[in-house]
């Protein structure tokens, strides 16, 4: 006994609903669907990572609960720059930090009563709303590492996750 499924009736017999649902030929529709699924998987796995913000450490730039997208190819052709908001991998693409790069490898960084100092000079941060009172002794960023922190300086520095991170852990940069 064989079961024949016929999903490609002549045009004049096919209802509009059926044509929208399966197209003229189910096999072609399935093939196209499979291609779209593979392309979507590749795109979201290797090119663009959807990011949901959880927490307040990047406020006011990124609010808790917002959705954004990170480009995973951004640092293939250029090194991360100061001011870039980057995605730092904690567990593949399932858990990550969203932080801003403040100092590059070899630079000296410090905070003095809320003011960011790079190589001993004041650095104006336009993205900060409330400068707070962060104070941190000067340190040199090791080679191959970047100094990252969040934009919310209202959180006490002791309760904020900030510090140096290896370049290999930076997955990409937030694009929108």
């Amino acid at each position, binding site marked *: 006994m064989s079961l024949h499924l016929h999903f490609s009736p002549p045009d004049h017999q096919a209802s509009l609903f059926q044509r929208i649902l399966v197209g003229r030929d189910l096999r072609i529709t399935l093939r196209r669907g499979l291609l779209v699924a593979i392309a979507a998987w590749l795109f979201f796995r290797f090119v663009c990572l959807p990011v949901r913000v*959880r927490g307040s450490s990047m406020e006011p730039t990124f609010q808790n609960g917002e959705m954004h997208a990170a480009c995973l190819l951004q640092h293939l052709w250029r090194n991360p720059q100061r001011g870039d908001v980057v995605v*730092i991998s*904690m567990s593949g693409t399932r858990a*990550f*930090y969203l932080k801003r790069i403040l100092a590059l490898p070899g630079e000296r960084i410090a905070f003095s009563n809320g003011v960011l100092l790079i190589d001993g000079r004041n650095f104006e941060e336009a993205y900060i709303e409330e400068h707070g009172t962060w104070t*941190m002794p000067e340190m040199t960023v090791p080679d191959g590492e970047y100094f990252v922190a969040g934009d919310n300086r209202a959180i006490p520095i*002791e309760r904020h996750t*900030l510090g*140096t991170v290896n370049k290999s*852990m930076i997955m990409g940069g937030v694009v929108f």
Partner: protein
Amino acid sequence: MSASRENGSVGKVQQRRSNRLLWLAVVLLGAGIVAYMIATHDLRQINGKLNRIARLVSKRTGEGPLTGLTRAREIMTCFSSNVVVDLGSPWQKVAEREELTAVIHHTRSSAESIDVTVRDRNTSVQRTNHTAVTVTTVEAAVGYRGSVDRDVRIFRIFWVKDRAGWVIERVEAADSIRPPPGLRAWES
């Protein structure tokens, strides 16, 4: 007549063969399942314990003090007596099970809610000396005075197998974002 008898006996032989093959397949499948269960027994026990710790540390709003104490006691059974927990800044290093229990109890009582999620885990078991190492990513959301603090960290957990099963001997923070030197640890 004799041809049909021959056919019948050939059919019986074939049926016996197929029955034997079926039994062999069932036995092999059973052996495979048993072997898999034995091979992953330690892994499953460790994963179960990790989930249990996450469940016990988590706290819902409105939890009573007695429940908190009971949970702290239960958590104690998952650690060896001389456990060392070094979670990195802002947490202080803890070097004994009783101290750890007190810290967990204190943290749980001062927080309004705690939600611990084990995001990822990778365990390697050394059967020869009954030890194991798990590298895991843990996300915690702690509700405190109306606001929620979130943190994600990678931990390296060292297990040892004793009479009671797998217990944690050491916990340390693995490399992720390294805090700058000279920052004072935050005390809740």
